[in-house]
């Protein structure tokens, strides 16, 4: 099963190293990883897409939690928003192709962010499935390059990735 996991971390050097190293070492299957800062200085947020059975996912969560710099781990089972950004450079040989590509662009509400004589760069955000179909739709025209960010995710509603309250002294 595909899971989207959000991880709140202290943005120390090498924290990404620790996380990817953990996946490699324990044989967890990491499909994508996206990282960015948050509104709180010193904290970054990572979205991971992972596949595996329940037991594997439980271990993924627990092992992530063992990392000293990890503050919070959430497996987005609940309703959540998921987005990915893709840049697609597509070959457009002539006017006909250009028009066809434009149709696809409009259908998906993508944006043209670069225009050259024989190519276009299109930008699209959406969930991974939408981006998959966008790429499939463009494929016949000759895709030159694709760059995807990997999914980022956030719970719907009031739920946030808050740090757990101080529990007990050790």
């Amino acid at each position, binding site marked *: 099963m595909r899971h989207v996991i959000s991880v709140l*971390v*202290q943005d120390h*050097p*090498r924290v990404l*190293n*620790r996380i990817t*190293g953990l996946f490699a*070492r324990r044989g967890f299957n990491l499909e994508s990883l996206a990282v960015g800062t948050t509104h709180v200085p010193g904290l970054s947020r990572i979205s991971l897409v992972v596949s595996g059975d329940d*037991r594997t996912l*439980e*271990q993924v969560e*627990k*092992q992530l*939690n*063992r*990392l*000293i*710099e*990890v*503050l919070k781990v959430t497996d987005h089972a609940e309703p959540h928003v998921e987005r990915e950004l893709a840049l697609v450079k597509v070959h457009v040989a002539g006017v006909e192709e250009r028009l066809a590509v434009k149709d696809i662009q409009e259908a998906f509400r993508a944006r043209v962010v670069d225009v050259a004589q024989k190519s276009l760069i299109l930008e699209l955000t959406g969930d991974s499935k939408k981006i998959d179909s966008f790429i499939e739709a463009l494929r016949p025209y000759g895709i030159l390059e694709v760059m995807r960010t990997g999914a980022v995710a956030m719970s719907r509603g009031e739920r946030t990735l808050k*740090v*757990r309250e*101080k*529990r*007990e002294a*050790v």
Partner: protein
Amino acid sequence: MKGAEALLKALEREGVEVIFGHPGGAIMPVYDALYDSGIRHILVRHEQGGVHAATAYARASGKVGVVMATSGPGALNLVTGLADAYMDSTPVVAITGNVPRSLIGTDAFQEADVTGVTMPITKHNYLVQEANDIPGVVREAFHIASSGRPGPVLIDLPKDVQLAEFTGTFDVELDLPGYKPTTRGHPKQIERALEALEKAERPILMVGGGAQHAHGELLAFAERTGIPVITTLMGLGAFPGNHPLWLGMPGMHGTVAANRAIHHADVILAIGLRFDDRVTGKVSRFAPHAHTIIHVDIDPAEIGKLVRTHIPIVGDARFVLREMLKGAKPLKLASWWRQLEEWRTRYPLRWKPRPHLQSQEVIKAFAEATGGHAIVTTGVGQHQMFAAQFFPVTRPRSFITSGGLGTMGVGLPFAIGAKVARPEELVIDFDGDGSFQMTLQELATLVKYKLDVKVVVLNNGYLGMVRQWQDLFHARRYSEVYLADSNPDFARLAEAYGIKGVRVERKEDLMKGVEAVLSTDGPVVAEFKVYHEEGVFPMIPAGGAAEDMILEHPAEREEVEA
């Protein structure tokens, strides 16, 4: 004050009394500061010896062990020992020098990415960027190493940071928002656990290394309930090995009683252990009749990792047992005990007597001569299993061996660390001729610090444990395991270091040899030439289950056991 002095001051504030280490260019400012420091330093001959000694120091004392090394090759020599400490959850702080910050990443002389290399084998590590960060990093490192599930932490200090002027403060608060181990088990789960035990007909208590510090509570709980107790290799000593409630060690070379008890148990209370495959055998066939497994561990990631758990209790063994003690009642286990007693008396640990001197009888002789009153360390191999089987460990922190990583060569440096930690104790290293040769240069450390350690080399002329597997599973094709043609004369080797050497070759000289070792004031290396083709039994072949246990070598079997 320089960063290097600040480091030592911070270590002093953590109560560090001794550091094991080996100097070099990139850590020289710290060694320079050490010259004026009150902290004792033990100079080892190889950094691996240093980290193993620090590990045993921690295991024997319950404090944090500290090891220090220079950059690059020095730091990399710590790798095996750090992995060993990590696998056996031992609190160790390693301090390594590194090249100056401006040279990091340039392939400078003696540079290595030590924090990168040690990431998978440390609980956490640091590359210190500023001298003023030193007290905070040291504070955190000791806290992380010793709390929750203990483990090694590495602090990498660039040389220019050691030399930089320190203008900071030592009064630092811990700031670890992502690190809050749960120590108190959940009351509801504890209640459920007690209920399950009360209803149990065939319960057992399995204890691992995570309960070494909870020995008092364990004893009280076991005596209150009357539950049979099994201790893993790492748990030996956490419960007295001469107690009537004790069934022995489980797993590959465990006792029949312990393994059968697990096989037939209906409720298992497992405390501070991680269900290593040497304990469980094939997990799918482990404890097939247990309808309730209660797992107490401080590390939530251990619970359910390998074995399905019905009642998970995240917490410190000591706290949880204290809570459990409040509600614990005597259990009605008369018929269960009748069964256990039968297995125990019918299948005691034993060996097939031979005309040659045998490892088992050497260990037994030492156990009897000392009344079991010693700290035992071991290498890795058959001798390690024989020591676990035949030296009854009665006190906690008294059997120090490499459980998780199975690191040959730990015996002597472990003995050094244990002796430094507990100088008043008799320390015996039961070692193999193979294992001993991996770190025997640390004999020099014994000499330098006049450490009274007794090294007992059980010389079978083979890499015995490998030979045993080749014997049983590879049609006796003894590929590259023969040592006798090139072993040194261990007694004379000891003498070359100025240490007393003893050699015993014949059965009838056994007691004289034991006596010679124990009556010597100071370190001894005693070589006992033992039967070269001995096997460790009982044995559950790797990947097998309790039912697959073989009690003796198939070729030597006299009767078919039920």
